């Protein structure tokens, strides 16, 4: 366990250095964060166009949380990047599990997502007249973190399956988070979708976490909030299990047919 944590830490440090090579605080703030904030504003403005403060509240809260999913699923690019840069084969040959390395590397983006979502939560509601139950609303960032972890597990699972198709990594990343933004109750309640879609929605990350946040903000019972958050974590655990199996399958097959370094 201690060795795994050491690998996790090294993965985190490596990705942090890469992240800082790509972003300065200025590019993150004025390029990335501001873009995400404006994305949330885009949907809140739709609520304003619909002429209902209730819609503004619903769309803004949903999209504040949803922008975190974009960062949390960036792990898809990281995993495929290892394959493209030729380091995947080295990681497979190393005694530590490569899944731990990916998890460590992706934590930087999970942190970025939670930070962006939290800043959006603190700054945008007053601009759109969305009332929040302060000071208890200070707990919402913790719930956002739970949703982020779950989305991150889901992103890792998508990465495991897209490793065999590196040229489709951007498509996989975008479809990965767009599925969440479309169906998990970000813009319309999940009950809007047909029954058969709802079954699939219930095992997607963000569905239960967002329901917990909405319930909490609306003053719902603590038991409901805690229950939904527990479900969110359970969903995340399910996705990370599938991710581990998917990575294992890819590595086994790659070792067998020698395709770990050769895919386009």
């Amino acid at each position, binding site marked *: 366990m201690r060795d795994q944590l050491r690998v996790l830490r090294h993965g985190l440090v490596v990705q942090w250095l890469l992240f800082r090579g790509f972003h300065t605080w200025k590019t993150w703030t004025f390029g990335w964060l501001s873009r995400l904030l404006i994305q949330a504003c885009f949907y809140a403005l739709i609520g304003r166009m619909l002429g209902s403060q209730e819609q503004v509240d619903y769309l803004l809260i949903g999209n504040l949380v949803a922008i975190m999913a974009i960062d949390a699923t960036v792990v898809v690019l990281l995993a495929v990047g290892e394959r493209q840069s030729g380091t995947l084969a080295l990681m497979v040959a190393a005694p530590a599990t490569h899944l731990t390395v990916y998890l460590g590397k992706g934590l930087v983006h999970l942190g970025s997502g939670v930070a962006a979502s939290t800043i959006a939560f603190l700054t945008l509601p007053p601009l759109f007249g969305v009332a929040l139950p302060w000071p208890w609303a200070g707990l919402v960032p913790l719930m956002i973190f739970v949703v982020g972890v779950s989305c991150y597990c889901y992103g890792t699972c998508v990465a495991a399956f897209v490793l065999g198709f590196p040229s489709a990594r951007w498509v996989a990343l975008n479809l990965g988070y767009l599925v969440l933004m479309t169906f998990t109750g970000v*813009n319309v309640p999940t009950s809007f979708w047909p029954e058969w879609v709802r079954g699939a929605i219930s095992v997607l990350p963000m569905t239960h976490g967002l329901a917990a946040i909405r319930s909490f903000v609306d003053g719902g019972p603590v038991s409901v909030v805690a229950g939904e958050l527990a479900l969110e974590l359970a969903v995340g655990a399910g996705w990370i299990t599938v991710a581990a199996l998917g990575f294992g399958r890819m590595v086994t097959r790659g070792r067998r047919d020698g395709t770990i370094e050769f895919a386009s």
Partner: protein
Amino acid sequence: MRLFLTGARMQLWLVRRQPDDLLTLCTIPFTVLMLMSIVVHSGRTDLLANAFLAPVLIGLWGFATGLAAEVLLTERWTRSLELGLAAPTSLHPVYLGRVAAVLVLGVVPLLETWVLGRLVFGVTPTLHHPGVFWAAVGASLFAMAGTGLLLAAFMLVNDNGHYQNFLSFPVYVLSGVMVPVEYLPDFLQPLSHAVFLSWSADLMRDALAPAPVAAVWWRLAVIFALGAVALVGGRLSLELTLRRARAEGSVAYA
């Protein structure tokens, strides 16, 4: 013209080889589902035209800021930019042909939106002024080609993902692709007039409404003019950028 067509043909051939190049076509159905579901769920069917047009314009813009803007960058990454510069003829028509080919794909989101609207929500907007609508689409494609060339030249100098990322939702908000500009704060509204997408969105929305469309020629002229400004700006900017890269020896290593 031959060079332009060669560029267009080459780009379409390249797109077939890279699934990621068709990213915009894959994301548009989700944009349609999101925007249509909001409008349908709220019962505001009078806003269906907005929900139909937004994915179309977002798709068109997505191609311009994504694939089209990366045409020259890809040339640099594949080490063919210096070969192009060493060629005896000017390659600008080839690059413009490649950008234009990308924007032909930009019409596909229109089809996607209509099909999804019909299949998933059972609705399609009525085209009350088809002539105006298609004229607006044509003018927008021209303006987008100019903008694509301008962005391609810009990206060659600023080879990082920061600007590309930023040129999405801020532009959608500013140009009123979904929410008309009058819902924006007053200080932002004048800025939207400089973005051709805002004129396109307004004109297309009016073409879907039963009321007569006012000042059609003037509005089309503005879209064309903004596109022409971008096209000339892109051409000049590309010329200057490539000339400087040649002088500095940074064609391949910048």
